[in-house]
């Protein structure tokens, strides 16, 4: 099923270390990459794993050593012993910004530009080897846009949000990966999820249940929309029949047998056609840039934050515009000149023709979701901008005993509340409240050290195992 070469319509990751962008590849399509308009036609038919350099809006395949290994000739062998004679002056570099811009405009390659920069630096040769390497790395990153074309995976997609982690509630690889572990979600699991992470958590869980499991995404009724952007990135449209939506508001109705007779979910599976994944598309349309948590600002600028209404808070923050530009063809940030054709947008069109049919389908899907819930779930995962405690406590009765529950939150305080509620209600075992220290290292000869910048927080996790509250006593042994 998985092809080794990029095909028309594929979602493709442009990747270099710690940086990723996703684009859907279509013939004649142009995308924006780091403010450069780019023709992606050339990718079709190329094997995944190929490396490309951007050269005047064209993609040029690099054979041989990968981008990160690009050598810089003899220049770096000429080194000073230390920096004692260096003064920090702007005049050290004889080339001006204008010179560089002109070179780029003239189509000089980044490699060549860097060589020129070195040639025109008064101090480069006097710098220590260490300083030279640092200089080169900085310049390479700036002037040589090189990337490798990869098939999207959750790992690569996570990189996309590194510039604006608030979009995914500040989930980091370590917290997301532990969320997945502690949820114990596996092939065939029945899972309930509440997430406002652009569908990232949903997608990861979906990948793990395979075609045999079921996921019900619980959606607050008093929210306008949920975003599942990441589902598109990962090309998960085909799995949509395993994903259901259910309004949190209706949970209590499940306890009333009259309105929700216990349906045989298998019956519904048969009627359901493959395309009906669309039925939950209702929640798929509006992209929410909002970040409720971030409505809270540092105390210094607090008046500002308090003044915002909740609607405004939903409409996103100042960083959003920058970001959407980078997203290229994703969601509401369609690139100019490119045809509107993302998976999401197509669904909108499909929804149009027969509203009544869609409504019926939606209703049927929701009933099925209700059945999945009432027949009890194996796992519950919460990673959202809603207050988690009421949701958690509401959901506990729909979990098998010995099920796995994970609540992720950017803040510690709400999880303290969750912990206390579960503890006080004797609703779980192995309660764990934790955060993770995540650190990356630079491993280089004679220059090994932890990276200079690190993330101060990847959020907090509260995990536990559900338990039966009333014990079954059995006869002590004689």
């Amino acid at each position, binding site marked *: 099923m998985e092809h*080794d070469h990029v095909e028309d319509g594929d979602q493709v990751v442009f*990747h270099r*270390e710690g940086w990723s962008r996703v684009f859907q590849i279509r013939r004649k399509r142009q995308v924006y990459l780091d403010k450069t308009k780019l023709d992606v036609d050339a990718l079709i038919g190329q094997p*995944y*794993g*190929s*490396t490309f350099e951007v050269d005047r809006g064209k993609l040029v395949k690099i054979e041989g050593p*990968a981008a*990160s*290994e690009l050598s810089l000739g003899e220049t770096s062998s000429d080194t000073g012993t230390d920096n004692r004679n260096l003064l920090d002056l702007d005049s050290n570099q004889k080339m001006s910004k204008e010179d560089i811009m002109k070179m780029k405009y003239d189509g000089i390659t980044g490699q060549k530009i860097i060589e020129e920069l070195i040639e025109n630096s008064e101090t480069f040769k006097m710098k220590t080897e260490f300083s030279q390497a640092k200089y080169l790395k900085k310049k390479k990153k700036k002037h040589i846009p090189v990337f*490798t074309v990869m098939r999207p*995976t*959750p*790992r690569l997609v996570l990189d996309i949000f590194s510039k604006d982690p608030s979009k995914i509630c500040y989930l980091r*690889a*370590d917290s997301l990966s*532990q969320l*997945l*572990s*502690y949820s*114990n979600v*596996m*092939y*065939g699991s029945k899972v309930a999820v509440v997430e406002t992470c652009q569908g990232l958590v949903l997608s990861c869980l979906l*990948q*793990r249940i*395979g075609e045999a499991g079921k996921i019900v995404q619980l959606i607050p009724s008093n929210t306008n929309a949920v975003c599942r952007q990441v589902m598109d990135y990962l090309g998960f449209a085909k799995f949509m029949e395993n994903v259901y939506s259910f309004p949190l508001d209706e949970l209590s109705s499940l306890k009333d047998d009259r309105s929700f007779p216990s349906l045989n979910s298998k019956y519904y599976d048969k009627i359901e056609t493959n395309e009906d994944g669309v039925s939950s598309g209702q929640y798929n349309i509006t992209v929410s840039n909002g970040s409720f948590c971030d409505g809270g600002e540092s105390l210094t600028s607090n008046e500002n934050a308090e003044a915002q209404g909740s609607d405004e808070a939903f409409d996103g923050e100042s960083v959003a515009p920058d970001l959407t530009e980078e997203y290229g063809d994703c969601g509401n940030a369609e690139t100019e000149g490119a045809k509107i054709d993302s998976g999401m947008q197509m669904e909108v069109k499909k929804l149009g023709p027969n509203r009544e049919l869609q409504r019926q389908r939606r209703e049927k899907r929701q009933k099925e979701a209700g059945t999945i819930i009432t027949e009890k779930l*194996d796992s519950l995962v919460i990673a959202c901008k809603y207050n988690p405690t009421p949701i958690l406590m509401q959901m506990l009765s729909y979990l*098998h*005993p*010995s099920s796995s529950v994970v609540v992720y939150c950017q803040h*510690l305080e709400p999880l*303290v509340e969750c912990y*206390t509620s579960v503890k006080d209600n004797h609703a779980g*075992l*192995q*309660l764990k*409240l*934790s*955060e*993770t*220290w*995540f*650190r*990356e*290292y630079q*491993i280089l*000869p004679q220059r*090994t050290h932890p990276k200079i910048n690190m993330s101060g927080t990847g959020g907090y996790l509260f995990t536990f*195992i*559900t*338990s*039966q*509250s*009333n*014990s*079954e006593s*059995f006869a*002590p*042994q004689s």
Partner: protein
Amino acid sequence: MSFNANKHNVGCGDTVLLYVGYDNMLPVVVEKGKTHQTKFGAVKHDDLIGKQFGTRLQCPRGWIYLLRPTPELWTLSLPHRTQILYTTDISMVIFQLDLRPGSIVAEAGTGSGSLSHAILRTIAPKGHLHTFEFHKERSEKAREEFHLHGHAQCVTVTHRDVCGEGFQLEHTVDAVFLDLPKPWECILSAKRAMKKQGGRICSFSPCIEQVQRTCEELSAKKFTDIVTMECLARHFNLQYAKLQNVSFKTIDETIDPQAEADSEPPVKKANVTPSSRDRRGDSDMHHFTSAVPAINMPGHTGFLTFATLTSNDVN
């Protein structure tokens, strides 16, 4: 079979965890007629059969819970045959290796099978784990365990030293995991094991010198995106904490002319106060719920190095 998602009641031959307390679980394989001793008294296996996972059992001297084993709980309760990987690192490995149902994975060494169980959960039922262990007894124990846990179809346990003899796999796996004293010695063999489309590799090493040599070798063998990281779990304990509120006299008390007139030294007067207040109990206490990081935490498990082999660089 009890690791399976669709299993909700205990059957004969199932591995169950008898939960005695926080981080304290006894793994038991249920067999007809057997009895297990816990600190809360004896548990008859016959009484467990047919019970739902999660059931609370009243034992002579306390409650225990009958838990379904998960790889995370297994990691906390498994018999240690070696140093093991814990869930924080395990999670990162699974995620960074891009594992999912259907993935083919090579692992060396098997050790106590802590990571293996998490890999198997993720790749089952159509994926496969080739796991290698140079210690004979350990590899046999691991094979037994995997069988008992219903993973027989998904795993091949091989007793072999991959450093000397290699994986002997030709372009069959999506990912390789190495937990070896000298991982650099089998990078080449790992590369050969990778599918033609390429894949991901991870090496776990406690010492930085091992990481340095491994990174050099990975780079020499054309692996890219070489990243080294460390992750440590920091657990919070919830405490109902209290701090003593100190007493401050109001201005009225202070300028009380009576006290001045007596020329009673202020110190004396102050000394009278505490005992009377203390008797009121906690009224002088500031109470709050505090999330307190555990005082002792694991400071290091190992460095995780990840790298990519692209289809370009497979040969």
